[in-house]
């Protein structure tokens, strides 16, 4: 039998129908309650259809019946891994409408807690991404470290994860005497662990083989899909609202914006997206150190604000750099103490929409990694 003939025979015999597989809604690799309807040809993914809404809690509808300060706890529950960062654009939007100037100390305190929370978020992101690839040890390292960060935030706000710490014109609790020392210790620990994880996970050849050149997201596609945060920066675009729109006191700090450089694999693949997060932790550490240096230790943590917060008629769109990307709040006010309409533009929601685009043509096992590298939280996707 000639070579060609045998091949033809094989093709006709192996020509199988495509198969549809459901991943989730209850599956650890979907990082929450997400259902992916995947069409596979053998082991190659040909189509992905995400089905959302399993965690839909009518956030926007609830907001219309709530006064402005009552909404903050709901916002915590959107991206419950980085609640501090979530609250920030919301209170900034209110402060912009009410024209409130927050005290200097509060600005620095906000920067510190937000950056601490950013580190905690990235620790989870990198840890679970490692877990998706089969690396268990970095997960333990990061979760141990994350606990120290949570302790500090708990001492400040009284809660481990859902803080309700940011208030209009200030924060709910002042710093405690050992605050500075404890934060500096955490920063030291974060750096130490990151160094370990670099050797253990990031440059591990098995990990590199699994994640490099997988799920390539080109910069043009990333912008067109509205991606933001590490997903966009992993594709090589230095877009960071902390620098581009320099809200709060971010213009006073010296920090870099890590982007995917294609050190291993190509720019925009899973490895680069993940690497951006590891580098960002280091940058957050730098910001925290500078903020602690510059922060006035004395003073009040609350500006003078009216007892009942009533927004003037109008509307505002405020966005800030969340660990996962640009989090935006569009608030329409009708002049009362409740919003007429509040729309949240979650980075996870937008970043997730790129999955069908970038996972086609890869292996089924790679799909799990691509999803892990996007770093989504379903609380924010479904709201």
């Amino acid at each position, binding site marked *: 039998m000639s070579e060609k003939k045998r091949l033809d025979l094989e093709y006709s015999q192996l020509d199988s129908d495509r198969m549809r597989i459901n991943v989730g809604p209850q599956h650890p690799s979907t990082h929450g309650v997400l259902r992916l309807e995947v069409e596979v040809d053998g082991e190659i993914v040909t189509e992905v259809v995400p089905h959302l809404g399993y965690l839909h809690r009518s956030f926007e509808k609830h907001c219309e019946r709530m006064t402005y300060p009552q909404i903050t706890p709901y916002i915590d529950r959107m991206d419950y891994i980085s609640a501090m960062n979530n609250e920030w654009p919301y209170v900034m939007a209110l402060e912009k*409408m009410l024209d409130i100037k927050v005290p200097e100390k509060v600005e620095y305190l906000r920067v510190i807690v937000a950056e601490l929370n950013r580190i905690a978020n990235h620790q989870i992101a990198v840890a679970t991404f490692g877990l998706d690839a089969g690396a268990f040890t970095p997960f333990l390292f990061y979760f141990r470290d994350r606990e120290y960060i949570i302790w500090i935030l708990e001492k400040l706000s009284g809660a481990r994860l859902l803080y309700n710490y940011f208030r209009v014109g200030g924060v709910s609790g002042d710093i405690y005497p050992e605050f500075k020392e404890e934060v500096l210790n955490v920063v030291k620990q974060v750096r130490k662990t990151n160094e370990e994880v670099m050797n253990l996970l990031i440059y591990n050849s098995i990990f590199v083989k699994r994640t490099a050149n997988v799920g390539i997201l080109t910069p043009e596609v990333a*912008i067109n899909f509205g991606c933001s945060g590490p997903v966009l920066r992993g594709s090589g675009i230095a877009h960071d609202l902390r620098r581009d729109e320099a809200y709060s006191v971010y213009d006073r700090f010296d920090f870099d914006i890590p982007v995917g450089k294609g050190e291993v694999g190509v720019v925009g693949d899973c490895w680069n997206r993940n690497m951006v997060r590891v580098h960002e932790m280091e940058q957050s550490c730098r910001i925290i150190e500078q903020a602690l240096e510059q922060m006035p230790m004395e003073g009040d943590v609350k500006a003078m604000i009216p007892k009942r917060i009533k927004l*003037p008629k*109008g*509307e505002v769109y405020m966005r800030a750099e969340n660990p996962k990307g640009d989090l935006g709040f*569009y608030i329409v*006010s009708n002049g009362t103490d409740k919003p007429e309409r509040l*729309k949240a*533009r979650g980075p996870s929601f937008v970043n997730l929409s790129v999955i069908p*685009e970038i996972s086609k043509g890869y292996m089924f096992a790679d799909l799990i990694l691509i999803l892990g590298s996007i770093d989504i939280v379903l609380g924010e996707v479904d709201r």
Partner: protein
Amino acid sequence: MTPQEIYEHLKKSHDTAVLEFVDQPQTDPFIRVEPSAVFDICHSLRDDEGLEFDYMMSLSATDLGEQLGVVYHLYAMKYRHKIVIKTEVPKDNPLVPSVERLWRTADWHEREAFDLIGVVFEGHHNMIRILLPYDWEGHPLRKDYQAPETYHGMKVS
């Protein structure tokens, strides 16, 4: 470009479809446009030299009482300028051209707007619900929405 300049630029090419430029206190300056011309105007916003709004920050729909409003928040990566485009459609015939072909992020945003407010985007390839179950009735973020008593025999409260 400032919002005023963007308005003047659009006015030149789209004359009657660009209704007005509003710069009120407590509101980001916005341009109100004719709903039927949304796609063409957005096309100019994305592709015209000097504008190049390549990034859609957000697409929101609102219930304005008699009408439904759609708000586009756009951003240009290159120039770092922003603009807000607004349009209004009657509640009984809420048709807006889809901009999904311009910014693919609009795909899910438009589905969400359809799901929660009930704005129908013409030309969208897959205008189905996204957050609520596919067979849900009504659009919850409308002010006159009444939640159904039961859903598939389960009590809704």
